[in-house]
């Protein structure tokens, strides 16, 4: 097991370093200049040069790379070119929105998808089983932002039950307001995510229901519920956990659109603004944090799968993903 952890950890760091370097070069190649964000319609050439000096985009590329790498090694994400605020603290502020949003939506999606997916499999022969499956088919085809807009239209504008967007100034110091602010966004993400999860849970459950070992258990006197509970669940969990890993990873930064619909100060919108303004430290900071998170999530999902399935434990080296 330890050998596996070391190899997997090494791979993690390698791909992280690779991503950072690729990112640095890619951003420098993009036309446009971070200094532009500081200029107004009537800046003089001298002011343009001053802006480039402030931002440091006037210095040669290798020099910029060395300073940047130095900062990265010291885990100092540097300062935003535009706001001159340090990037690190702003990311933590933004995480206080994105992480609860992603995790709560993820949990709600599981709470919806597991029972519904299971029932959908159990009643796959009946009409209501088929309707659930058709609904989930619709669910994965719906654009997230459209769901968001519809929810805002109904619950915020018409019924005035929830705010239409924004995040309370006090943040989580005022949990009631924060939760209310996140309700519709969480619901938006969760509904769409549960649609695709339902299909995975359903197919995993069907595999288990048609399995021989379940029939053996029933032949040895177990009720279908007990057989499912004792044997079925763990076997179905394996494939579902791997999907959950991927789904959570993409949700992390994937909520960009939802953040735009609900005007939430999350990590996604910070990155969008960073890209628009060529604010390299912000872009690199956000992508550094999100890549780490995503790779860690993938690592944990992998680990969970190994714990669940002894067959994976033995062949720890050459296992082909």
């Amino acid at each position: 097991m330890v050998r596996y952890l070391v190899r997997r950890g090494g791979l993690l760091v390698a791909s992280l370093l690779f991503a950072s370097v690729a990112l640095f070069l890619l951003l420098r190649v993009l036309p446009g200049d971070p200094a532009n964000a500081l200029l107004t319609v009537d800046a003089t050439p001298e002011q343009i040069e001053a802006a480039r000096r402030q931002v440091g985009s006037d210095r040669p590329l290798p020099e910029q790379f060395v300073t940047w790498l130095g900062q990265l090694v010291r885990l100092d994400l540097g300062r935003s070119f535009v706001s001159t605020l340090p990037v690190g603290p702003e990311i933590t502020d933004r995480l206080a929105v994105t992480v609860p949003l992603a995790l709560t939506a993820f949990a709600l999606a599981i709470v919806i998808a597991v029972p519904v997916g299971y029932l959908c499999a159990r009643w796959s022969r009946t009409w209501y089983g088929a309707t659930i499956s058709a609904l989930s088919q619709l669910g994965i085809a719906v654009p997230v932002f459209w769901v968001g807009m519809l929810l805002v239209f109904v619950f915020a504008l018409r019924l005035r039950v929830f705010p239409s967007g924004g995040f309370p100034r006090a943040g989580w110091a005022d949990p009631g307001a924060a939760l209310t602010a996140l309700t519709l966004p969480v619901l938006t993400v969760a509904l769409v995510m549960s649609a695709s999860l339902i299909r995975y849970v359903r197919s995993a459950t069907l595999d288990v229901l048609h399995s021989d070992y379940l029939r053996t258990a029933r032949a040895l006197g177990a009720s279908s519920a007990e057989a499912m509970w004792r044997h079925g669940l763990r076997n179905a969990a394996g494939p579902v956990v791997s999907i959950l890993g991927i789904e959570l990873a993409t949700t992390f930064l994937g909520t960009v659109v939802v953040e735009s619909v609900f005007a939430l100060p999350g990590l996604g919108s910070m990155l969008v603004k960073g890209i628009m303004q060529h604010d390299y430290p912000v872009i690199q900071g956000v992508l550094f944090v999100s890549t780490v998170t995503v790779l860690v999530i993938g690592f944990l999902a992998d680990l969970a799968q190994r714990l669940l399935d002894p067959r994976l434990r033995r062949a720890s080296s050459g296992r082909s993903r």
Partner: protein
Amino acid sequence: MNLLTVDMLTISGTDGRALVSELSFALSPGERLGLIGESGSGKSLTALAVLGLLPAGLRASGSIRLQPAGGEPTEVVGAADRTLRRLRGRVATVVFQEPLTALDPLMRIGNQVGWAIRRTRGLRGSALRDAVLSALAEVGLDDRIARAYPHEVSGGQRQRAAIAAAVACRPALLIADEPTTALDVTVQADVLALLDRLVADRGMALLFISHDLAVVARVAERVLVLAQGVAVESGTVTEVVTAPDHPVTRALLSSARQLDAALDGRQP
């Protein structure tokens, strides 16, 4: 009194086509019956029907009555799962063909045997542990196997474990659905001998399902030949072997004879 009475059993699929039609036979306690036929003749379905484990979409009609010694007869066809649950394991159980998939890949073998015993004989704690170890010992498996996972042991050992679990429930009727077909020839003989001994020691009735007459001949006294879900011939092993009158039986016999001649040169 018959332990198992099957009367005019018909099993039809979703499209109404009969997979087994009007099958009747009976089995008294301790008696052994061989059910043979080509694949697709409905023999496995009959076995599943006896325990009410037909896959979704298939419907059984006619009557199957199970009557354990000194117990009330129970009509299996149309019975609620709750009532059938009390029969499975205690009164009758099944050993399936494919040992690799028949066992839960994520649970240690000892636990799987344990849950069967705990459910049917209500043992707990150290008594349960001892029962598991003795059940495994009976089929020639040591306690290392108890801690192992199915993928960590051989096909033969897996089938022995499955038999141990079934027998440990002390059923009156053991149904064996081609238990040795998936094993290689050398292991096949040992498992058959093991089955023979266990059924004899416990005086269990045996319903042995196979497509191989030679194998059936080794463990059963009477034989019922099925073709396309219809019983075409029945009788003692010797009657059927010496004077087969239905073409299907003759075909089964000739293929079995070549195998036997090749194996040990015994008189066909």
